[in-house]
């Protein structure tokens, strides 16, 4: 399988091939190339609805992660016994929300989406940021991942700053 990419919105012009290419590099750096993953790009209306349903927060956000394996030790690659379990889960990218943030910060949309996706994959691998300690651990991981990404691709991505994006747990 690999990465199932879906674009369910028409607000933001998306370069699917570029997003997929960047996600493949991230998967390689994380060491999860064998695992399937879903990346679903949605607008503010949809991400707000999902945020409301699953986290009781009636507002749009940049990313929501739905891990296949819950309660993973942060960064632990799942031990898989059957082929159908090579699945990390789904990441919903609030592309409209990210685009709005990019306009404020003059950042490139697709670079921002790559950073946000890295954050989402960290959540799929058990990282959380509900406490200061957890946040520091997650940010360390993100910094490493993105520095490797930059080294391999010549980009200059930086991890997300401390913000309101929460761990995705219903």
């Amino acid at each position: 399988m690999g990465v199932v990419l879906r674009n369910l919105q028409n607000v933001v012009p998306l370069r699917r091939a570029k997003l997929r290419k960047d996600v493949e590099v991230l998967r390689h750096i994380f060491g999860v190339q064998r695992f399937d993953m879903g990346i679903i790009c949605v607008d503010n209306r949809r991400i707000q609805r999902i945020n409301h349903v699953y986290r009781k927060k009636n507002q749009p956000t940049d990313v929501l992660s739905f891990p296949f394996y819950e309660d993973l030790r942060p960064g632990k690659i799942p031990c898989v016994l059957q082929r159908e379990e090579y699945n990390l889960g789904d990441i919903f990218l609030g592309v409209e929300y990210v685009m709005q943030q990019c306009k404020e910060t003059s950042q490139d949309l697709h670079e921002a989406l790559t950073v946000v996706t890295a954050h989402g994959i960290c959540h799929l691998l058990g990282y959380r940021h509900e406490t200061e300690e957890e946040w520091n651990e997650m940010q360390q991981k993100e910094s490493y991942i993105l520095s490797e990404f930059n080294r391999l691709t010549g980009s200059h991505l930086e991890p997300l700053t401390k913000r309101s994006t929460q761990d995705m747990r219903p």
Partner: protein
Amino acid sequence: MLKSVSRAVQLAARLSLSSSAPAVRPAPSLRRSFSRSFWSLSSSGAASGSRPRLLTATRALPTLSCGCGSLHTEGDKAFAEFLTDEIKEEKKIQKNKSLPKMSGGWELELNGTEAKLIRSLSGEKVTITFNVNNSIPPQLEEDPEHAQKSPEDEPEIVSTPNFVVEVTKPGVKSSLVFDCHFPEDEVGGSVSEQTGHGEGEEESDIFAIREVSFQPEGDVEWKETSYTLNTDSLDWALYDHLMDFLADRGVDNTFADELTELSTALEHQEYIKFLEDLSTFVKCK
């Protein structure tokens, strides 16, 4: 395998997956499931053209006297009255009296139920062709407990036709042809399975490419010897490049949404016209 592009559009028009009746268009104020379901008694369905024999030849038909020479029965009279009401109601709920415009400078050409959208972009010509026949997906039967809904709760009828995109570059004899469709919603994935995520949340792309092929430019016969790429088992990176290619030529999710609005309006328009022609045909002249 698809034939000529125009025939491809006809063949690509969605056939009802049901073995019986085609997609039902409910009357706005009165369900017409009874009259439609009569056709479903035929094993091959109305879509195939066979007609159930409702009246045997040995029974005399109740006729009305008329000088025009055609058969006119009491049933025809009731039918004509029914159609008059039906046409009135359909016109009342008609959303768009004129067809909605597409953004992006697309020129619309109509030929009955077939529509063409044409656009030029830096010398390239992009043509989208679709047919509104059989373009309304069948609506699944509800659970009997929830079957009794008020008219306001009825799902909106939306036409989602298969469509063919032809991209022709100047000086190149062949066009790159994409057979596209509006996929049924995907079910599954960790979210759906674990959390019943289907709560009205679709997880399919708005539209998808099914096949890609090089074909002679224009409305000529489909070249069977041209390789046709099927996306079912295609490398996903290649698929994304193809989608980006279309998006750069104005065939993106915004286009797809507007296409369904146009198709829905056209289908309704053609349906009303059909009812009017039917009424004229049935009535005593």
